[in-house]
């Protein structure tokens, strides 16, 4: 039992922080927003390749860096601080799913290219609010081909992606329903997407699949509910959630630091406002929340890296991060007053990300329902 990071982990985070502060400035973040989202600049992407970010959690034999999920989480934490473009997260989630579900040939091909920065992907394997319901897409098999139809909501970065990994429910008259995970090369016939307008101005899309025809080769997993492969999807969902938590911890830390800088230097009544007890207590509460969220997140990542589902720990982490990040931003608004309210002050960029990440993967009601289930408190009725 040891809840402190090792020296190499701290050093890696530190070097990544310096790189991202240089390559992912707030000006860049702002330039990537609406109305026409610009593609992520090649310079940032190649910097991420250079430090091994994009290959971090994958084995050396498929072209990765051989790090753990916790290592990737530490990288996400740094990315979260600077509001790194979400293409990084959707590509890594795609890569983790391919790595876990696909056969070796596909893994070597795709993971290697992800690590080299040559491929971007996105995925829709569960409901965006984190529920593992029946997939929204139907898969019918006819004449040697699968045909996929359905609508997917809130899929990130589809238009910048080379691949879309999608879960579908089979519908065959003679066989029980199964889930298939299909690898779609984009653009694909029958796949259309339209961008939704989010208040964070990030790139999320509604994706329509109309009779999209794919061969068996494209199906990288076909499984029954309750099978080991369904467990793999569950693990992927939790890993994605825990990684998102790490991003949220980083974002919350950045907001707290901005706020501290402000209250140390802003003078009113002849003294720094950070000297007032009412201000200090709000700062202390943010700090306590962020530290709890950080530890809960590391715990979830560590157990997931050990191969566990870590259902309870993951959900606890998400519940903590939801609150900690949001509270950091809303407290920051209160302590900055008007000086944090103007768009030109940038604070709102984090405030929007805090709300987006809270809703994605589930806000408090989703987490408490899942946690009650993990605790065996389900209703008998």
């Amino acid at each position, binding site marked *: 039992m040891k809840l402190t990071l090792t020296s190499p982990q701290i050093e890696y985070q530190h070097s990544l922080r310096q790189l991202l502060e240089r390559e992912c400035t707030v000006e860049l973040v702002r330039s990537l927003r609406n109305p026409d989202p610009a593609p992520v600049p090649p310079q940032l992407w190649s910097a991420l390749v250079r430090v091994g970010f994009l290959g971090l959690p994958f084995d050396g034999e498929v072209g990765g860096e051989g790090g753990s999920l916790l290592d990737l989480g530490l990288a996400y934490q740094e990315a979260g601080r600077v509001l790194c473009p979400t293409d990084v997260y959707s590509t890594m989630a795609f890569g983790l799913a391919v790595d876990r579900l696909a056969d070796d040939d596909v893994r070597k091909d795709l993971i290697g290219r992800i690590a080299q920065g040559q491929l971007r992907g996105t995925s829709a394997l569960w409901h965006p609010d984190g529920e593992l319901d029946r997939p929204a897409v139907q898969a019918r098999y006819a004449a040697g081909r699968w045909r996929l139809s359905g609508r997917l909501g809130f899929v990130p970065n589809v238009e910048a992606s080379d691949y879309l990994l999608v879960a579908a429910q089979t519908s065959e008259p003679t066989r029980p329903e199964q889930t298939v995970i299909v690898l779609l090369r984009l653009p694909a016939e029958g796949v259309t997407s339209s961008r939704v307008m989010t208040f964070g101005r990030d790139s999320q899309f509604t994706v329509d699949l109309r009779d999209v025809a794919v061969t068996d080769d494209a199906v990288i997993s076909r499984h029954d509910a309750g099978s080991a492969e369904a467990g793999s999807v569950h693990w992927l969902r939790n890993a994605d959630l825990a990684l998102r938590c790490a991003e949220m911890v980083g974002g919350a830390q950045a907001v707290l630091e901005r706020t501290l800088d402000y209250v140390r230097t802003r003078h009113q009544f002849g003294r720094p406002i950070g000297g007032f007890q009412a201000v200090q207590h709000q700062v202390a509460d943010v700090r306590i929340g962020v530290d709890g969220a950080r530890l809960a997140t590391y715990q979830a990542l560590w157990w997931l890296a050990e191969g566990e589902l870590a259902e309870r720990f993951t959900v606890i982490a998400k519940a903590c991060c939801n609150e900690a990040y949001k509270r950091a931003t809303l407290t920051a608004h209160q302590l900055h007053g008007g000086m944090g309210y103007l768009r030109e002050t940038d604070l709102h960029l984090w405030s929007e990300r805090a709300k987006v990440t809270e809703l994605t993967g589930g806000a408090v009601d989703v*987490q408490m329902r899942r946690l009650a289930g993990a605790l065996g408190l389900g209703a*008998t009725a």
Partner: protein
Amino acid sequence: MRFDYTDKQLAWRDELRTFLDREVSDELLEEIRHGGSDVRGPLVTRFRKAVGDRGWYGLNWPVEYGGLGLTAVEQQMLIDEFTARGVPGPDLTATSVAPMIMRHGTEANKADWLPGIARGEITCAVGYSEPDAGTDVASLSTRAELDGDEWVINGAKIWNSIAHIATHEWLCVRTDPAAPKHKGISVIMVPIDSPGIEIQPLVAWSDLRTNLTYFADVRVPARNLIGEVNRGWSYITGALDLERGALASAMQLRVILDDLMAFCSTHLLDGVRLADRAEVRHRLAALDADVEVARLLNLESASLIEDGQVPTIPATEAKIFQSELRQRVADWGTQLLGMYGQLDWHDREAPLRGRIERLYREAPLMRFGAGANEVLRDVIAQRGQGLPRHDR
């Protein structure tokens, strides 16, 4: 970084559990239930001796001071295992006073006090607060004056818990009234049976006894002064940092919450299984998440101690978080139980033998004790985040 116990730690936990299986009887638990932590009946005394015989009160001290050389994490494991069984673990004497003697005491201090503390034979009431010096402890006015080779002490200490069962008083006194208030304070070990000491009981809302202790011309040998004269303020603040850490074991809340969840899942209250209600499940889950966070905050502090750091800020965060969570567990717990939440623990129908209502009455202490949470938030902001003091 590792979130699981090592094999060595698991073996240690097995050793603890084997010991507790053997030593904890229903009779011992009943004695504790009726007496609380302020009574030391014959069975508790015997249990404490069994712990002391193993040197477990000093388990994380260096071997040279009579300790076992184990780590802060292993001490946390002991406290957790003991708490889970509802029996007393090491008190502040072992977790907060002794480390200050090791760090600041003279060689004579160490020889005089540490072996007895390790065996559990010496236990101290901590004399910080006075009727007119509460949160502002540094304004204390109890005086000690050197007369030949003896200190002569006059004054009074309040919130002097366990003075009536302790062997000694870890007493903070003013030894230089002319110096600035933080610079004229010393710490003296005072045998509690010294002539001139009068202990008056004060009974708290929680039923627990604390004391108002008077010192009138109490004489103790000069060698009982800890470390150097007039340097006591740093010893007290160091001890208070450790006290916060030691108070913060989340295991008591874990046990109560687990029992509350089991109760809500299995018992019918007026024909209703509480866990069938979504709002009950939601509240229990929210408490479960927070109790887990409290556990992690403590473990982080223990890990930092293992790394040779003094975890002032993490331990302070843990104290604030846990003390407020404690109140919330008790508050929500009584609410979930509806009208039954008010039943006193003596009532035969009290759910969970009244532990929730007792917790509700015990919880305020942790919020204002060992540094009021308001002051501790200042500590986090000022010492942890570098914000200015209020007077600057």
